[in-house]
Every structure is written in C-alpha cells, then in structure tokens.
C-alpha cells in the first residue's frame, strides 16, 4: 500500500481520478473542501475526520459491486472491534451508530469497453467534535459516541488491509 497524505484537497476521489497511480495507492486527506457521496450529495469533511480513496486493481463490475458491499461490512467490523460500539449498515453503503450516520463508501468506476479504473472513497467521522445544526441530528462521530480520540492512520490501514483480503477471496 502506497499512502499519499494531503493536508487539504477538494476530494480524495477527485485527486485519485486525476493521478495515474498504481492499484492500492491510497489518497488520504485531513480535510476535503468538496467531499461528496452518491448522487453528488455533499459529504461534510472538516479536519478530524478520516477521508481516503483507494485506487482499486482492475476488476469486473460484478466483483466491484460485491467488494463495495463488503467494504461496508469491513469498516463496520473494524469500528466494532476497536471501539466496542455497535454500528449498523444501511445498504448499500452507509454506516450508522445510534441511528446517526458515521461513515459512507462510494465506489466510482470509469468504464469504456471494460472497467478502466476504479476508486473506492471512504469517509469516516472519527474525531469530529461538532456538527452544524442541519447535521446534528443525523450525523455523529466516533469521538462523540465513545469519548475517545481515534488514531486515523491506524484505522485507515486496518480498513485497506481487510478490503485487500476480501478482494482476494471474491476474485479467486
């Protein structure tokens, strides 16, 4: 895994799409100014949260679809193991704690005759301490829920490692 860390970017997935990096390169930023989710919804991405995009190896669209769902399970499992909280997954790819959104995954594929390039963007609200009023009741962070400071790099590495394992299993 090659980790490229930035202080601030528009979106880690936008950066990943413009670069010609090798598979399993991870673009990680402390904040995003234009973080987005599915259907171009915006993703609140201030400092404190964990925002990264993984450049995936070439794969069939069916395997990528499976991998995206597995990534939600992987992320939820890692949250559960590290923080002893009970996350739940709202399919396709949002993670909730106590009925509030804590994380989301967006896989984007660039397709010609076949899949040319795929990026999996993951946003996890780790150390966000305060939300704007419009998000207060629908979003939460691991710090708010557990009172503990999260080591973003440790969690990022665990998630990427486990996604890599899952891809090996499904593409056998």
């Amino acid at each position, binding site marked *: 895994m090659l980790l490229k860390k930035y202080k601030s970017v528009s979106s880690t997935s936008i950066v990943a799409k413009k670069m010609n990096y090798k598979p399993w390169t991870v673009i990680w930023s402390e904040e995003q100014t234009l973080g987005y989710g599915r259907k171009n919804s915006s993703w609140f991405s201030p400092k404190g949260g964990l925002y990264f995009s993984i450049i995936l190896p070439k794969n069939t669209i069916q395997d990528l679809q499976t991998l*995206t*769902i597995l990534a939600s399970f992987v992320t939820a499992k890692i949250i559960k193991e590290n923080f002893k909280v009970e996350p739940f997954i709202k399919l396709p790819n949002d993670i909730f704690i106590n009925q509030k959104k804590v994380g989301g995954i967006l896989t984007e594929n660039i397709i*010609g005759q076949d899949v040319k390039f795929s990026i999996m963007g993951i946003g996890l609200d780790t150390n966000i301490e305060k939300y704007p009023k419009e998000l207060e009741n629908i979003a939460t962070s691991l710090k708010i829920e557990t009172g503990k400071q999260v080591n973003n790099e440790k969690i990022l590495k665990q998630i990427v490692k486990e996604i890599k394992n899952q891809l090996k299993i499904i593409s056998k």
Partner: protein
Amino acid sequence: MKLNINIKGKKRIIEIKEGNGRIKVKIGKKEFSFKDKNGKEDISVAQTSIPKKKFSKKEIKAPIAGIITKIFVKEKQAFKKNQKIVSLSAMKMENEIVSDFQGTIKSILVKENQKVKEGDILVILE
C-alpha cells in the same frame, strides 16, 4: 492441448484431446466428443464451441443495471477518446462511461433519471 480463454470475464480452461478416431473437447467439467470420420481430417471444433464476442464499437451499452444520472453529451456533438459520455448510478456505485475512441454522437436513446437494464443501448456513435 490446453487453452486458457476468457469468456464473459470468466477464465475457462479448454482441453482438446485426440484418440480412437474421436476428438474430445473438455470445458470445465463438461466434455464434448466429436467423431473424426476419416481419421485424418481436421474438424474445426473451436468455431463451434467458442461463441464470438459481439462487440460493437458504435454503441454504448449499460454495463450494469441502474439509473442514468447525467448525460454529458448532445446529439451531433463530436467527442474525444476517454470523454465522459454518461453517468450511471447502480445501486452501490457511480459509473462514468467514457468513449474508447473519438467520433460523433449519432443519437442518445436515454434520458436522465431513466432506469436501464444491463446491455441496454444508451448512445449510438459514429
């Protein structure tokens, strides 16, 4: 003779054997046997056992079922290689469909927010 062939994204091992006046073709666990009448004549097995891929460069088809979220081009518009043509939101992913070559958009068969099935023709190119 063993051949590794990729059919519809799946790797297949095809084994061809000769013996006792017959030609056997094994694909996965299935085996097909052909009688060689003259014992000498070659029988073209490959042509009948491997379907040709129907790839048309002139159409853009939906690679997966989903909803067309954005159409980036207009009819009669020229496009470059790797230009975004449409964006398709499948249940778990956003897919940007790009052109593999340069040309002109002949017609657009879908609208934004339209549901499509896998294999549906979205755009015709020329």
